[in-house]
């Protein structure tokens, strides 16, 4: 897939709760095909302390409007600066990057935690385009830390797990009743401990499972080898060979 570098305009910025925000980015040109689970490398303006681009996963795509939505959690100076940009500002992106999820299985489960929920909306849409309604299990410490909820309903059955019980079942996603049901494919993105628990469950039960990793990156295109993760076949770039990995190749990582 061809990678692009282009300027987008911030058409809309929405704050979600205390730590999340979305950027609706409009391109002057038609968007290339974008796969679910792919990400962009955003150039962060204004902040003298931010040197590198920031990798941010693609939350939603609207080909008709030539827009992409990014769902971002403020975790450092880069994301904080992005959260402070005014609508109308231009953002330079390198995109679409990474391999993305493969939309397989007839009875899929999507498991998202916190900011890791971002890539799952566009993924759920892709399933629904194939006439498949995935089970969607979203978790967070509190309801407020689950940035998007209702948006998922059109595309599948949505379940929630919160550690404080403020939404859905109390506990971790892996303790949710929906998690134990039978699936033929699991796609997950979120905190590493959560993804590892999901991966171990999938491996134990022989369910195909894809995990989406979030290592710190420099180049985003597989040139600098800074963002590697251990796989059963050695170091692989999260930016190029990932961010999505089949747990079949991540047994060591999962344990």
């Amino acid at each position: 897939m061809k990678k692009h570098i282009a300027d987008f305009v911030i058409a809309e910025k929405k704050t979600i709760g205390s730590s999340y925000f979305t950027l609706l980015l409009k391109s002057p040109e038609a968007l290339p095909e974008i796969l679910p689970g792919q990400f962009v490398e955003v150039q962060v303006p204004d902040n003298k302390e931010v040197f590198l681009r920031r990798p941010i996963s693609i939350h939603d795509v609207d080909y008709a409007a030539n827009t992409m939505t990014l769902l971002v959690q403020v975790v450092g100076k880069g994301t904080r600066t992005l959260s402070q940009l005014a609508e109308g500002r231009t953002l330079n992106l390198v995109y679409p990057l990474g391999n993305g999820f493969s939309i397989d299985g007839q009875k899929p489960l999507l498991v998202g935690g916190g900011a890791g929920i971002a890539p799952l909306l566009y993924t759920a849409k892709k399933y629904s385009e194939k006439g498949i309604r995935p089970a969607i299990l979203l978790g967070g410490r509190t309801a407020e830390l689950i940035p998007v909820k209702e948006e998922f309903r059109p595309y599948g059955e949505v379940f929630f797990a919160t550690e404080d019980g403020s939404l859905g079942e109390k506990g971790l996603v892996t303790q949710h009743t929906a998690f134990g049901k039978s699936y033929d494919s699991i796609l997950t993105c979120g905190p590493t401990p959560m993804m590892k628990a999901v991966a171990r469950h999938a491996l134990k039960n022989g369910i195909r499972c894809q995990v989406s990793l979030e290592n710190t990156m420099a180049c985003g295109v597989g040139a600098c080898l800074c963002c590697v993760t251990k796989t059963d076949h050695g170091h692989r770039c999260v930016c190029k060979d990932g961010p999505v990995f089949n747990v079949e190749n991540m047994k060591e990582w999962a344990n």
Partner: protein
Amino acid sequence: MLEVKIHNLSLKNPVLTASGTFGYGEEFADFIDLSRLGGIIVKGTTGSHREGNAYPRMAETPSGMLNAVGLQNAGVDVFCQKTYPRICDIDTNIIVNVSGSSIEEYCETAAKIDALDKIPAIELNISCPNVKKGGMGFGTDPKMAAQVVGEVRKVYHKTLIVKLTPNVTSIADIAKAVEEAGADSVSLINTILGMAVDVERRRPVLSTITGGLSGPAVKPVAVRMVWQVAKAVKIPVIGLGGIASANDALEFLMAGATAVQIGTANFLDPTVTVKVVDGLQDYLNRHNIKDIHDIIGII
């Protein structure tokens, strides 16, 4: 006229890509026309497959970054059999960065690259700060540097560029030593050894504790060293360290570099290399300079 020569090697312009920042070129083919570059210096290649260091390997710093990749690569045989056929027809100079932990490894690898028709030069990396054995060790002592270069010179017959480390008291002495040992050119600077601390976690950011600093932050140090080395040796000097614009490249050329390499800036803007090529031509036009050589080493 942007054409320059590094020993027998003709470059259509003085802009090369720095090893380890541009992959094998393919990673940037979507963004730029690779044939517009003076050359591509591909990833550090060693005698056998290397996994490199554990993650985290990177830390962002003011106007720069630290890396501790540690020469991850598939090894010279995989390069010759799999990678070389894929990239050898890119219409520019493909130069291989050769690294190792022993003189034998350097020589074996260089000899295998010597046999590849379409690789006109190697860059001998005696300055990697991120490997335990060898690497920078060879580059910080004039005698050892001369020894490695001398041995490689016996088995490698094309243009031999030697990449120097800035982590020394006198880089000019190292440059003179490798010139005497048979180097056709020197490239500098490799990264400066640095360190970053995660104060919330109270531990180093990098798995290796220390790593190599690159980016605009190091440019003044690199320009100074290029100026010192260009005055000390007769062989052509290739300058690198924080170049992100044509003006940056011009600083190195005026300080005495015959060509430059662009590294970390490729991460910020994958099209930066061709912008620098265009910017150099614009400068020459604006100042009515016919030949880039008229400003090389003007200081």
